[in-house]
């Protein structure tokens, strides 16, 4: 059974709407949808840009577990979320205590995550860490 989910292309700022067609929980194709900016049309990236979701490993593998490197010359090791968040938050708080909140820089993501995730990140920067040091690649 085919299922269609209406979404927005994750590539350029034109914001084309498309339908992802899935069979048994896997995407099989993308179809142009009647979005305001694209009116059913799609470019190559809209038509084929979903293939990375199948973890093709053509270029680089998807990340599947938190990875931690205890020192810069050691290897990455898989850790639990508890350990990953515990490690990162402790180190952030140590640095904040030692060097102040403005010694921490954050960059948001203008790609797949979306507005809500970025809103939460800037709230983390401003309300929790206490810095306005947050920016993203609009500048580059």
């Amino acid at each position, binding site marked *: 059974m085919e299922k269609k989910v209406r979404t927005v292309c994750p590539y350029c700022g034109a914001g084309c709407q498309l339908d992802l067609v899935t069979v048994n929980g896997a995407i099989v194709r993308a179809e142009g949808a009647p979005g305001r900016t694209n009116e059913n049309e799609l470019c190559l990236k809209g038509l084929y840009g979903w293939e990375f979701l199948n973890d093709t*490993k053509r*270029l680089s593998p998807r*990340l599947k577990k938190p990875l931690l490197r205890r020192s810069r010359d050691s290897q990455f090791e898989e850790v639990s979320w508890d350990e990953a968040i515990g490690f990162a938050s402790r180190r952030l708080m140590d640095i904040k205590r030692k060097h102040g909140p403005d010694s921490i820089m954050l960059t948001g993501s203008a790609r797949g995550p979306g507005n809500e995730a970025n809103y939460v990140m800037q709230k983390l920067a401003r309300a929790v860490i206490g810095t306005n040091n947050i920016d993203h690649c609009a500048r580059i």
Partner: protein
Amino acid sequence: MSNSIPEIEDTDLIFVFGYNAADSHPIVARRIVRAREKGAKMVVVDPRKTESARVSDLWLPIRNGANMALVNAFAHVLIEEGLYNREYVESHTEGFDAYWETVSRYAPEEVEDITGVPADQVRQAMRMYAAAPNAFILYGMGVTQYGQAVDVVKGLSGLALLTGNFGRPNVGIGPVRGQNNVQGTCDVGVLPNVFPGYQPVSDPAVREKFAKAWGVDSLPEKPGYMLTEVPHLVHEGKLKAYYIFGEDPAQTDADLNSVREALKGMELVIVQDIFMNKTAMFADIILPATAWGEHEGVYSTADRGFQRFRKAVEPKGDIKPDWEIFCLMATAMGYPMHYSNTKEIWDEMRALCPLYFGATYERMEELGSIQWPCPDLDHPGTPYLYAGNTFNRPNGKGVLFATDWRPPLERPDEEYPLVLSTVREVGHYSCRTMTGNCTTLQSLADEPGFLQINRADARKYGLKDKALLWISSRRGKVLTRAQINDRTNQGTVYMTYQWWIGACNELTLEHVDPISKTPEFKYCAVKVEAIADQAWAERYLEEEYAKLRRKLAEPVG
């Protein structure tokens, strides 16, 4: 964008400045073609004969790095020839006298040596622009990625103000944004000087509103650092930790060597991403997130349209949506943060942002797309800004702005005789972790990418089409492949920035615009060297590429 993407089709004249729609935004390019079919005229300013230039009425082959001089010359012609809209200028703008004082020194005949554009073409372009009942300016990175960028944007707005091309459909100026959600990321306050909804951090009332909503005593008032300042701030010992979310600065930023030094100089690097990438290799901790297709939310289009995107497949692996990861981090840092879904987050933000208040999930569902400003729940959204020609300033008037041209920083010389400009290609995107993992798109182009070079230059440096070559600047040296291309101008070569082996950002420099702090990706001095032993070069390429892929695959197992 002041106006909307669909309006491009219904304008009378499209004025393209430093923007290659066919490669950057194919769907916008189709709008341009349809506008042409409906009879719109088109003028294109670009050093390369892009697809837009090819199908235009008039192509002005500007010399790289001369934007401000040409924009001033445009303004000069509009005023000197009396082509501008006097009534509009009197009613809706200010600063005319100072403006004329500057642009009067830029007669197109006087600046031919700088712009490379024959004066009569400059005059003809402005006669066409001023004669059009409605004209739409489209610009891109060919404007913004220079050491003098913001000035040029204001200069282009000035042309639209002089001719009264604002405040109604099918006019205005449009920077078509690069990444899918670069508009949205600005909209929600991921900028060092504003909260969500473009509310300044320097405003005490705004800070108080957000502090109250977020349940904290106070919020920082000093604007933060900008991304492109990071390398030297690390060097000065001011930055110690870097939390990088869904970006790959070790591939996409200027002067990669200095980026790598900055990453190494940090005491803590946190990377939150969907793929292993070059930046993640410098991380202390990597947090795996769900990708587009596996989560939901709202993106903003380049023309300010909020649109919902949805989950189509279940994520695989022990990974989490980005917002959940931030909530865990905040909670672990002593600030309990919890949301049940993205709608809760959106509603919290909406309530704090008058510009977006009426754009609810339900209304987006119903309307498909809502363009901000959308201040209340029955507001239809705003396809074009500045209705009634009222601008976002206390007196409502638009400012005519001109300033002198500044040349690019690193001019070609004997040792590095060519200019390098970084550009886009149609099949790949940004740092390429997404498109490079799409089988169909990967088949369009692969390492090490291409160097677009004019036939005469290729002959001069002994380069054959498709041959591998070395290209270097004062900052680095990479392998790339010649693509002899008659659409490019002599003296300048072009590379796209997503390649690992042919990484053009090893060569680019950190020189930035003083306001936007955007680097001058469009201009640095380079040299090219032919490689005699092509068989060796092909082997070297394959080995290096395989080595890099192995290195990135290793940590994931």
